[in-house]
């Protein structure tokens, strides 16, 4: 298509704007709007990633809770079983950024007084009746909490989770 209309280069428009000509105004307006749009778009992206991470963590914790719920007397290391289950169900989260806490309460009816808390990815025992596995008993409860650090919820330096970005998710299941 042959064009017969007059075209203006961007430099020409900017140049003309330095005078009293209003022709370059739109570009400036666009630049202002675009920077705002960029913040919003980045925000959407960051929130999207954040929610993806939170969902992965929820999925992982759910899986770990389910595994421990049916592991009474069947595992020597409930912490490792939980950690493995979280990692298997949340492949998008780097294992090195994950940390875990499991709370085993053999008698949930009496509140948290009998609860045992274990942190870390291992609490192995040589027997199913001693150490951490000994507190994983039928009728008790197990609470699995997983933490993911280095999550992203910072938009152009503005962190929406002040105090260090760490997300966590938790679930409590009855021990079968």
């Amino acid at each position, binding site marked *: 298509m042959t064009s017969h209309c007059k075209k203006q280069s961007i430099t020409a428009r900017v140049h003309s704007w330095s005078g009293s000509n209003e022709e370059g105004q739109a570009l400036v307006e666009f630049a202002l709007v675009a920077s705002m749009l960029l913040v919003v*778009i980045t925000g*959407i992206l960051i929130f*999207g990633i954040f*929610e993806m991470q939170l969902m992965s963590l929820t999925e992982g914790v759910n899986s770990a809770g389910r595994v421990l719920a049916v592991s009474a007397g069947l*595992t020597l290391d409930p912490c490792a079983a939980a950690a493995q289950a979280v990692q298997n169900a949340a492949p998008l989260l780097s294992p090195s950024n994950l940390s875990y806490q499991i709370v085993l309460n053999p008698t949930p009816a009496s509140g948290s007084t009998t609860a045992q808390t274990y942190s870390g990815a291992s609490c192995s025992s040589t027997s199913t009746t001693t150490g951490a596995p000994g507190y994983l008993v039928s009728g008790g409860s197990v609470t699995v909490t997983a933490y993911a650090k280095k999550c992203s919820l910072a938009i152009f330096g503005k962190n929406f989770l002040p105090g260090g970005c760490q997300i966590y998710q938790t679930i409590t299941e009855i021990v079968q």
Partner: protein
Amino acid sequence: MKRKSEFFLCRVINDESGQTLIWTALMIAMLVGVGGLTVDLGRAYVSYRELQASTDAAALAAASQLPITTTNKSSNTVSSTATKYSSVSGNYNAFANLNTPVALTGAAITVTPGCVNVSGLPQCDTGLLANAVQVTQSVKIPTYFIRVLAAFGIQSAKSLTLSATATAQMRGAQRGPYNVAMALDTTQSMTKPDGGSNCSGTKIQCAEQGAQIMLSQLSPCLPGTTCGTATAGNVTNPVDEVSLFTFPPQTAGTQVGNDEGCTAKTPSEIAYPDSTAYATVSHSTPTMPPVGTATGDLTTANLQTLVNQYQVVPLSSNYRSSDNTTGTSPLTVASSGGSSTAPSIVDAVGGNSYFWGKSCTGMDAKGGESTFYAGALFVSQEYLAANARTNATNVLVLLSDGDANGGTMSAGNSNLNSNGSYPSAINQCQQAIDIATAAKAAGTKIYVVGYGVASGGCEVDTNGLTACQTLRSIASSDQNFFVDGSSTKCAGATSVTVGGVTDTLGAIFTAIVGDLTLPRLLPNTIAFTPTS
């Protein structure tokens, strides 16, 4: 014409008035849409995932309280337990997202007990009202971006209603840890040919084959591992341990090797050892005496005396070499069991003779004494309470014709009570019920297999009990009470069909071992009939 349109195009391109406004309006509209998708729907997905996770947890917790039977219909804790593990405010899984002030209306739960039909697992019948449970939770969460659509009349864009459903069945997952004590009838009548279609041998052989089914399906050691070497009958980390008792007592000290028959089999029965000198169980308020030294306690020495006589094999887990051994050799023992000094439970029930041609043909029913199973129940329960692992559920399996009628427990024996409280010469069926009541109160799950049960029975009971009524009362529930096809049809007994055969010992023991599993989740598409 062409030139005119080109001119118009040039004008649109170069005319900049109002351009940014239009662009911005378009982009804002687009961004609200994209932002709505990521923020609102992303949040909704996370909330939904939390709701589903807590619904699954609630359904599994509810399933642990199943079954609902005619007995516990009004007192069952299915619904309250489901709520305890749900997202409803104040409970274990009350996620902040799913409750006010974040949510518009907090999580609400519906618990529906009902029936599913899964082969080989407990089925609903007139006594079993619910073997599964369906839990639904719903929550209304607000939206932040897409609520602008409300300005265009779409009021529903202001909120999203999420709903999650989970269905769980009371059995069917992997096997939990159990301490199983099997008490088998070895009275003279067990040497007779099987009166039904249980097996082609004598009654004791049929009973032992039933026990083999238990041993072939229980879990000797941790899932996915080989069991390794057994020490004193137990592998390093046993899951299900099994012990074997008989009545009348066949064993006394060194007699064990002779009874199970790997060497020359010369079993000798002994008189029922029960005596008020050991311990008693009151008929009016039945409780198991603790093992100790206080007045009324069963001393450790006395327990050992009783155990030596009633017990053939102590709690052991060397009945298979791995958790998942299958095929033609399901009963390979973990260590070199089967010597005359340390017989394995597999030898005692004849498993290795069937599968390996070894000379251990299983226990014989020597008999010589009449039936008195209250003593076997008493010793089994005391043994479990004193020796079993605390993190495993105690299980008692009683196989008998139910007709308790005396033997050396006769009147005039000064070692016995005369008031009908264990041990006593009178009311022998009632004594078994009393002990079973105390054992169940102590947390033991009792399965009863009626084998060759006749109508009537319990001649020495003064209150008109029948064998059927006694066996039914001993069992933890009607779902744990079975009678074989050669028995009279006992009221309350659960009929089982496995592999096309109904109420054979094989089907019954398969049902028992199938009942020793944990609850599991089912797909929501399964046919689910709510209990009315």
